[in-house]
């Protein structure tokens, strides 16, 4: 009988030890994960703040006045005028370009511009 009691006691001790060990491992893991989570959250916050700074910077770089000045300085682009937007059917046909050879010769530059630029 006393052997049974001893065995039960030993089992209880072992069970308590296993539970305690399991509790320790679990709590340890949870704490590590919480710390990791806090770090991730901190990183996310830093990233969000960085994104805000970059967005503000990007917006300032895209200021229409700045873009207009840069376009004027480097690529000589100006506003589109309504008459620059034309329908394809308005352009002369190839045949028309050659219907007056003498005139074409006279206005070679104009025809070349038309052929190269507007098409």
């Amino acid at each position, binding site marked *: 009988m006393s052997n049974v009691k001893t065995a039960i006691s030993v089992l209880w001790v072992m069970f308590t030890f296993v539970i305690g060990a399991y509790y320790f491992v679990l709590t340890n893991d949870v704490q590590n994960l*919480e710390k990791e989570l*806090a770090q991730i*959250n901190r990183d996310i916050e830093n990233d969000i703040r960085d994104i805000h700074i970059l967005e503000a910077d990007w917006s300032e770089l895209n200021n229409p006045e700045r873009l207009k000045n840069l376009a004027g300085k480097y690529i000589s682009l100006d506003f589109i005028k309504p008459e620059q937007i034309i329908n394809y059917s308005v352009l002369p046909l190839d045949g028309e370009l050659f219907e007056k050879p003498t005139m074409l010769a006279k206005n070679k530059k104009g025809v070349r511009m038309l052929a190269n630029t507007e098409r």
Partner: protein
Amino acid sequence: MRIFNVCLVDGVHFNKEEVHYIKQRTGVIAPVRRANITDRNGVVVATNLPTVNLFTKPKRVSNPSLIAKKLNEIFPDISYEDFLIKLTKKSSFVYLRRNISPQQQAKVNALGFPELEFQPSEIRVYPQKELLAHVLGNTDIDNVGIAGIEKTLNDRLTNSTKDLRLTIDLGIQYAIRDELIKAKEEYMAERATAILMDINTSEVVALASVPDYDLNKRDFKDKDIKFNFATLGVYEAGSVFKVFNTALGLDSGKIKIHDKFDARFPLKMGRHKITDYRVPPKWLSVGETLIHSSNIASAQMALKVGKDLQIKFFKNLGFWDKIQNLEIFEKGKPIHRSEKYWLDHTVATAAFGYGISVTPMHIITAFSSILNGGIYTPPTLVIDHSQRQSKRVISKQTSLDMRKLLRDVVIEGSGKNANIDGYEVAGKTGTANKIVDGRYIKGKNVTSFVSAFPISNPKYALMVIIDDPKPTKKTFGFVTSGWNACPTGGRIIARIAPQLNIKPNFDTSTQREKILEKYGIRN
């Protein structure tokens, strides 16, 4: 040690900062506490940036004069005396300087005073500076909205971190503001204002009023530059009202499009006489009334329609109350007589825009409804605004008739200077005496031009207002709308229409001839 710590110490302890992160994770607190505002294409126009506040607990300060001296060297805009007062204050907490830069923070740190502490903070910045000044408004030092959209939508901006998308197009806004600055300078005006509206949805695509101010400077002293004339400026619009008067007449059925009105003699209304300015004294048709902008004929139309219908129509167009639902705080309340005192002479003068004062936003919204097929939709500055209810104010046929009539005003009448080839502009000019301190001032005017384009299938409505333009050589000494607001409107349309992807409607055969001639293929 670890076993002891984990097993016997009660649970997991988080410091304040960690609790903050956990709250963030659960959505209780956002890392940035005020949402961005973007234009309709997603370009950020208002955002929050992290900064630091410098503070101290005065009771702990051991050497206030030395600290004040050192801080004054870093922040020369705050005097030594001011710092000293703060440092010796009998309180437990005091801000020494808010929103300091990282460089300034490093310098303060280098001083090595443990009494000086830092607190993370945020500052609202507006990367586009003055471009959207009157739309966005501003926030105070605690990031609480105090004007414009920032004030009206303060709860939305603080309760959600999702970007707030405006209907404003930054490129168009810039173009319009640029033209307004030029116009203000050219006509030596006090102020120039413009609104561009999507005629079918009443979305405000651009809203600018110059002079304006850089939102980042937070200079709240000059109230004049803060004044948003587009939504707050209540004024008598003058002949622009003839659009509404004519639409009402035609829609009521009491006026037919071919009816004629006697404009040979001034119209007597009690002690007063209604006269015309440079209008041929003859019988005028409805179209001619608009083309020549006749006050006499317009008044006769209004009298024929009557008081009740006029008031009902003005109410329908929103002229009786503040603009509903518009997400901007500064909204002007129309000024008009009460129904009881809306007598015959008021009916007559209201026909040409006197005796009732509304804001430009009222006018352009009503104008849009007249030309878009007859549907009034309250204006909005925010994409996906769901609480707006549209209503019919005139029939589709009346709307189509008005398109033709107003196109003629630009082809033959006072709107000629806005007749931009290809864009089929239709509109109406208006010039009204300016009221200062309740009295009309002779020689001072507010000129308006309200237009829509392309009128064959209207997409946008534009309103330009020039406050007190001066005569110039170029305008041959005239100060009426046709010489300032109207050409400004024309220049704006010519510049923004290609940006808005509106294809010009040219007569292709004429254009073809021009091209062939230009390049020497035709004689």
